[in-house]
C-alpha cells in the first residue's frame, strides 16, 4: 500500500524525528508514504474570519496535488499527514468546501482548478487503525514496551472542532490509546488530553505557553504517567522545551520526557534504539527507558 504523504513545513526539518520513525514503522507494517512532489505550505491555521479566501488557497493546492499525484502514480486515493496542524487545516478546508459550494467555486476560479473537495485526508494514526488494524500492529511488535506508563496527548487540532475534524470523540477518544495499548504500554488516562499546549503563543508570550503546557504535564503526572506521547511537533516543543521555565513557577514539578508517538512505535517495531533520533527532546527520555528496562 502506497499513500501520498504531505509532510508540511515542519516534518522535514525540526520534526525529522517524528517523520523518520513514522517512515520506519510504515515499512515495518508493510506500507509506504510517498512524499508528494513540490508541495506548498498549508498555512498552518485556517482563517477564522468570514471572507478570507486566500487562506484556503494553500491547503487546496495541497489537496489537489495529492489527488493528482495519487492518480498519476496509482497510489491510494487519500492523503496522509503526521502533523496534527496540517491534518486539521486540510480536513477543515474540505469541510468548508462541502458546506459552502460558493467558497469552493471562488477558490477554484482563483487556482483555475476544478477541485471537488473530495481528497480523503487521514492522519497516520487512522491508517494504523483503519487500514492496518491495531491487532496487526500488535502482532508486528517485536519489543513490547511493558511497564511504560504513557499519557496520550492529542492537543487541540486532532479533536477540534469535532464536527469538522471528527477524528475521534473529543472527550473520550480511543485511537491514540488503542495504538499505545497494542505496543504493550500502560496507557494513562488523564484529564488534559485535549487541552491546549499554548500553541504559537510560545513565540510572542513564552510565559503563557509554559503555563498551558504545565497544566498538561501536571495532569499527566498526577495521573501517574512516566512520559507524554504527542502527535504534534508544536505540542512536543512547548511541553518539552519549556519545562525549565515551568520549574521557575512550579518548583516541585518533576521533569517529564515528551516523546513522539512514532518514536515509541518504531521502538516497539524493533528499530534499534541507537538509530532513533531524539534531537527534538530537550528532556532526554533514554534514562527513563533504561530504568524501565526498555533499552
Amino acid at each position: 500500500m502506497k499513500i501520498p504523504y504531505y509532510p508540511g513545513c515542519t516534518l522535514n526539518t525540526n520534526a525529522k524525528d517524528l517523520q523518520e520513525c513514522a517512515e520506519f514503522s510504515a515499512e515495518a507494517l508493510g506500507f509506504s508514504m510517498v512524499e508528494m512532489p513540490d508541495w506548498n505550505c498549508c498555512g498552518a491555521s485556517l482563517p477564522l474570519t468570514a471572507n478570507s479566501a486566500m487562506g484556503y488557497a494553500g491547503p487546496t493546492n495541497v489537496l489537489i496535488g495529492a489527488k493528482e499525484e495519487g492518480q498519476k502514480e496509482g497510489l491510494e486515493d487519500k492523503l496522509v499527514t503526521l502533523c496534527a496542524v496540517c491534518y486539521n487545516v486540510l480536513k477543515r478546508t474540505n469541510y468548508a468546501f462541502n458546506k459552502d459550494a460558493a467558497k469552493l467555486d471562488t477558490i477554484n476560479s482563483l487556482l483555475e482548478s476544478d477541485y471537488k473537495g473530495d481528497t480523503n485526508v487521514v492522519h497516520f494514526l487512522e491508517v494504523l487503525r483503519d487500514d492496518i488494524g491495531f491487532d496487526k500492529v500488535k502482532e508486528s511488535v517485536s519489543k513490547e514496551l511493558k511497564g511504560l506508563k504513557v499519557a496520550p496527548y492529542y492537543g487541540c487540532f486532532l479533536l477540534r472542532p469535532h464536527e469538522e475534524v471528527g477524528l475521534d470523540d473529543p472527550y473520550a477518544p480511543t485511537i491514540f490509546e488503542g495504538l499505545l495499548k497494542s505496543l504493550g504500554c500502560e496507557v494513562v488516562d488523564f484529564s488534559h488530553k485535549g487541552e491546549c499546549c499554548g500553541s504559537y503563543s510560545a513565540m510572542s508570550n513564552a510565559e503563557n505557553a509554559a503555563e498551558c503546557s504545565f497544566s498538561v504535564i501536571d495532569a499527566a503526572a498526577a495521573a501517574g504517567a512516566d512520559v507524554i506521547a504527542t502527535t504534534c511537533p508544536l505540542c512536543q516543543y512547548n511541553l518539552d522545551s519549556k519545562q525549565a521555565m515551568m520549574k521557575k513557577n512550579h518548583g516541585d514539578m518533576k521533569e517529564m520526557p515528551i516523546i513522539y508517538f512514532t518514536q515509541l512505535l518504531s521502538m516497539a517495531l524493533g528499530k534499534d534504539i541507537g538509530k532513533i533520533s531524539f534531537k527534538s527532546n530537550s528532556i532526554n527520555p533514554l534514562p527513563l527507558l533504561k530504568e524501565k528496562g526498555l533499552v
Partner: protein
Amino acid sequence: MSRVGVFVCHCGTNISATVDVAKVAEEMKNQPGVVYTEDYKFMCSSPGQGKLKEIIDEHKLDSVVIAACSPHMHEKTFRNAAEAAGLNSFKVEMANIREQCSWVHPDKAEGTVKSLDLTKKMIEKVRLNEELDKIVMPVTKKALVIGGGIAGIQAALDIAAAGTEVIIVEKDVTLGGHMIQLSETFPTLDCSQCIMTPKMVEASLNPNITIYTYAEVEALDGYVGNFRARIRRKAKSVVEEDCTGCGICQEKCPKKVDNPFEMGHGKSKAIAVPFPQAVPNVPVIDRDSCIYYKTGKCRICEKVCGPKCIDFDQQDEIVNVDIGAIVVATGYDTMPLDRFGEYGYGKYKDVIDGLTFERMASAAGFTEGEMKRPSDGKTPETVVFIQCVGSRDESKGVSYCSKICCMYSAKQTMLYKHKVHHGKAHVFYMDIRAGGKNYEEFVRRAIEEDDANYIRGRVSRVYEKGDKLIVKGADTLSGRPVTIEADMVVLATAMTARKGADKLAQTLGISYDRYNFFSESHPKLRPVETNTAGIFLAGACQAPKDVPETVAQASAAASKVLGLLSQETLKREPITAEVNEANCIACFDCLNICPYGAITSKGITDRDGNIIKEVAEVNPGVCQGCGLCNAACRSKTIELRGFKDNQIYAEINSLAV
C-alpha cells in the same frame, strides 16, 4: 319560493338614531322571498321575542332575518326563540347593523344605505340556509387516564370524586411516576413520599378507579364521548389478585439487579417492587434478568410464595375499554447525558444528575438520606450544581428552558446544607427563573440563609484531579473565569418528552411539537385540550412543569372531562363538512389539510362487498367547522354546512352594484 320575515331592531335609539329603521323595514318588503317586515323597539326583549314567535307562526315564515346587533351578541337568543316557534334555528340569520353600522357610522344616510345592504345580504343567505339538526352523540360515562404519576393520579381522583368511573393505565410497575422519586419538594420542603403516598393509596382504594399497572394503551378508535381503547397488560408473572405483598419472594430471590428507581445505585431483585410503598404492592418478575427464564432452573420465588401466586407462564392480556374522554398524563424523561463529555458524566462517578441527588437526599434512598458521594462514600464538602445542562443549548441539547431546574437546584443546595452543615454549595446558573408563589423568596433563602454561592455563568469542563473534581466555569458578572475544586457535581438535566411520546400521540391522534411534547389546542384559551375533541392533557407531557402547575392542570383536565361526561348526549353545532360521495375522487387534499384529523378515507363497496371506490369521509364528532377542506377542494365536493359556496355567493351577489 321561500317565506322570509325581516325584523329591524331599533335597539332603543342605539340603531334608530343613525339608521332609518323604518325605511329599511319598508324597502325589504320588495326583496324576493320576503313576506313580512317590521321594525321594532327591542327585538331581544321578551315581548320582542314573543312577537317573533307569533309572526313566524302567523305568517308561516320559513326563515327569518333579524337586523339588529352582532350575532355574537344575540344569535343564540333569536335562534332559540325561533326554535320555540317550531322554526329550525339555522333558518335564522342576523344582520349586524349595530356594532358594524349604527355605532360606527354617524351619518344617517350612509348608515341606512349600509343597513339596507347588510340586511339584503342576510336575506339572500338565509334563503339558501338548510334546516340543520344539532349533532347528537351518545356519551360513555367513563374516563381513561394514561399515566399514573402525580398528574394522572390527581386527574383520576378528581374525576372519581364526581362519581365517574375512571381507568388509570401506568406503564411502570407502580403508580407514583417521577414525583415519588423526589426527596423533598419546593417551595415548602415537604417530603414528597409524605404527600404522594397517601394519594397513591387513595387512588388504589377508590371504588371508581381501576388501575392497570405494567400496561400500555396500544390502540384507540372512536371519537369524543365514544372512544374505545385497546390496553395491553404485560405479564407480571404474578397473579395480582392473590398476591398479599408479603415480600418473601423478593427477599429470597437470588438474582440481584440494578434498581432503576434508585437511578441505578441501589440494588433490587429479579422479582421485586421498586420501593416498599409501591401501589399496587405486587412484585413483578423482570423476565430479562430472572434466572429461571434464562436457564429454566431456580423457581425459588414459586417455592417460597405462600398464596402460590407466581405464574411463570402468564401471558400478556389485552383489555378493550369504552370511554368517553381521555386524560394524557405521561410525564417526562430527562435528557441522556452521554453527549456532555465536557462534564464527565459517566466517566466520573461523582458527577451525578438531579434525580440521583434526589434519591441520595431521600431518607428512603440508596444512602438512607445521607450525603455520601458514589465513588468512595465520603461526605462531599464542596458540591457544584450546574444548571441548564441540555436546556437552552442549541448545539447539544434543546433550545427551550426546562423551567424546574432553577427551583430544584436551589432546593438541593438547601437539602445539602441541612445535611452537611459545614459544606459549601456552588450553583452555576444563567438566569434564575423563579416565577411562582414564594419561589423567588425560596431561592433567596438558599443564598442568604443556606449560604449557597450563586455564580452567573456556565461550566466548560469538569475533570478529575486526585480525589477532587475540578470545575472550570466562568462568572460573567465579573467577566472572570472561575475554578472550583469540588467533591461532587450535580447536573440539572434538561426535561424532555417521554421516549416514544410521538408514537403515543400518533396512536391517540393528537398533535405534538418538534420536541415531542403534546400540543395543546390553543396556547392561551385551550391549554388543557388537545386538537382532538375529548382528549385532554395534564402535566409535563405537554411542556416542562413543576408539581403545583401539574396538579393544577390535572384538576383542570378533570373538570373538562367531567363537563363532557356530565351530559347524557353531546350536542354539537352541525356546522360541519359534508362530502358528496358521488363526486369525490379521493385526492385527499381535505384529509391532508384538516387540522383535526376529522377526515378519513372510506371505501365504497358494491353488493358483494368489494371496494369499488375510495372517498373522503367526515367524522362529524371531530369536525370543528373551519371550512379549510371546502376551500381546498378543487371540485367543491366537500362543503361546509351553514357556509356552503352558494350561500357565500348569494351574499356576494346581493352586494352587486
